[in-house]
């Protein structure tokens, strides 16, 4: 996230991020307390090899920020920019659905500027 918006790091020059706030997967949890999206991926087996997972989680963060109650179709469309070879996307969608429900009904920690 660059100032709270999801970006692809490979298309942002470092100089463009001068003075901005960058949040990566390592910054999502609140100390030992996992973010609901991280928990969702864990509970629903939304990862296997884990390589796409940081990107999927950050993209999901953006998705849910803009649309806290997405339909299945909206989740799939919202994640179309991230590819996964292991999961067939099914449990990733379930993870986001689970996270969305927790975030709607419980407290969640804000992350980064511009939220």
């Amino acid at each position: 996230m660059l100032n709270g918006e999801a970006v692809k790091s490979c298309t942002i020059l470092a100089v463009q991020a001068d003075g901005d706030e960058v949040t990566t997967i390592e910054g999502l949890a609140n100390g030992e307390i996992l973010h609901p999206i991280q928990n969702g991926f864990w509970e629903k087996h939304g990862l296997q090899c884990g390589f796409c997972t940081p990107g999927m989680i950050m993209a999901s963060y953006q998705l849910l920020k803009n649309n806290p109650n997405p339909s299945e179709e909206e989740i799939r469309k919202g994640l179309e920019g991230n590819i996964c070879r292991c999961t067939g996307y099914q449990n990733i969608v379930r993870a986001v659905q689970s996270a969305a429900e927790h975030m709607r009904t419980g407290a969640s920690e804000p992350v980064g500027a511009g939220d």
Partner: protein
Amino acid sequence: MGIAATLGTPVKRREDPRLITGQATYVDDMKMLGMLHMSVLRSPYGHARINSINTEEARNHPGVIAVYTAADLKGKVGNIPVAAPLPPYIDKGMGRRGPLAEGKVRFYGDPVAIVIADDKYTARDAVDLIDVDYEPLPAAIDLEKAMQPGAPLLYEEYGTNVALPIHPPTDAIDKVFADVVANGGMIVKGRLINQRVAPAPMETRGVIADYRKSDKMLNIWSSSQIPHLLRNYLAEQVKLPQHQVHVVVPEVGGGFGCKLNIYPEEALAAFAAMQLGKPVKWIEDRSESFSSTIHGRDQINYIEAATDQNGKVHGFKVHVISDLGSYLQFFTDVIAIAFTLPMVDGCYDIPVTYAACDIVFTNKAPTDAYRGAGRPEATYLIERAMDLVANALGKDPTEVRLTNFVKSESFPYKASAGPVYDSGDYALALEKAMELIDYKGLRAQQKQKRTDNKLLGIGISSYVEICGLGPKGVLPDGGFEGARVRIEQTGTVHVYTGISPHGQGQETSFAQLVGDEFGIPMESVLVLHGDTDSTPEGRGTYGSRGTSVGGSAVYNAALRLKEKMKQIAAHMLEASASDVVLEGGEFSVAGSPQKSVTFNAVAAAANSSNTLAPGMEPGLETTAFFEPESCTFPFGTHICVVEVDKDTGETEIVRYVAVDDCGRQLNPLLVQGQVHGGIAQGVGQAIYEGIIYNDEGQLLTASFMDYAMPIAPEFPMLELDHTTTPTNVNPLGVKGVGEAGTIGSTPAIAAAVADALGVPHIDMPMKPEKLWKIIHQQ
């Protein structure tokens, strides 16, 4: 009161905390003091002679430490390993080569030289400074043309591109065919393309090699599926004794079979490290992954089925043509022969089967194992055959399948193509899938006239596959697996396994297995893998063997320690060992549960030894090796419903039901994940994916711009169910499930799309333009 059993329940994974927090270590995460970077110069031609290579400008570029070509490797690095070099030509050298091209390049991406530099950008820049004088040659690209006399030859000295023709006598099948026709039946024929695809794991390949010159110790970190085989073969290749090579496989971002291999870049990084005495890292970029990591599938199959008017198939004849690509990697030459040919009968009781095979070199990347490795091709050809039979006779495809299925009382069943299937109930799986998807309702719905512009299609795939590699004779170095289990004085358990999971989840399922066996929480069990120094000799993760073979070794080791603990507990309880039982984490005398000692107390006694009986060996550690006596045969039925848009040719998967039988399930969550991912790859091959070379051997699909990977919006929620038919092949009753989803799915989608368009068959991939043309020609 004890610990609730976890086996068979959907436990969330031990692996996940490090992966969901960005704390896992993949090869590219590793940095070492003084580490250098390797970049590879690759052939831009599909086929060319190398007249000269001038590396002077590259060598002189600031930051470049060394540049190496094949000449530098002479006498120091051996050929890329091939597990089973087949006669008559491969065993003499056809298709073999060292890590860098010599004299000729034979595929786009063929490694020609390497640059070692201070950083990866300098290395990559310097690669462009190497001047190679190529003389382009005509390329052999079309598989069937490559077999013909007069085709451009990859290995001129052999006079052909056909590395091994297998054409047994046809007397028996000819007679069956003649009899069937004489009795009013017919021969149904087809020519099928099972196209070349890229495994495309999310993490590309990568390796770090570090060599300590003083004592000649070579350390390798590689994104691999086979730590022990890599160590064994790489040691031989770089001419070091095996005990001086240490391989560690860190986190691996997907493999799907393409990392079940020993690649040129691993030997090259090792060579550079040995020359320079500094760590050398190589990370593959995505276009290299498309050009130079092995490709999967790539067969042409001719099929002929002799059927009577009732749809009973009396004889089946296949000709499998396998495109090897230009060189041999580890299993390239045996994929079709060892894994397609034996499974061409599928789930069906076919009295006479004939299989011919040609394996052929072409100017493309080497092919090798990719999820299913030969069995998706077998399933595709027999399932398409059954659909073609149904189509020719005007029968429902489910009816033809039920007519021909091996009956559930016939197991173990010897297929006429060769293997003995362990257990199965094919009709049950099909009927269950039909019920779940309301097959009758769907067919009725299909008959109704539609006002929209969509065509509805239904496709069925009933598959059986051979896996759980393996028994004697299936794999050249043996298909056994090793496990070392150590119980410490605190009662915690270390499990070291020779398998190498890269997403399959055995850190969780093996902890469940061992925890349940001892009646201790699974949190007390740590499962380790990937390091050849600490794990027993193993054969890695592929061929759906991790749990069936690897888990069985773990189980046997745990049982052995349980027996020893009973002896120790008996001494502590002053009882006879044969009277001692372990229940709920406590050892007691059968019938007297009030007098007991805990698991932890026995572990402490074993490891502190002062209170052990005289003659009792201290410690609780054992290594077990498990070798199955046969393969296992998972099976199932997938039914797919598609809607094809008449105006765009796009296919939407409306419903997908999968009923799979992998025997006993240790963790249903993990099983479902494997099936989901496998189905996605099968869908990918059927509709979206395909590696394409032009006539000159230029790779046209070298990025995700041109190679269509399936994405999230392209799937519905897959509906999974299962039957459970345990196997006797291993003590766990597990058949394996890693590849089944991919094997079962591709024919179901292919059948559904053909059904939607009302044609008997369409070749894959079923891209929108292809379907649109067919629709608009009708």
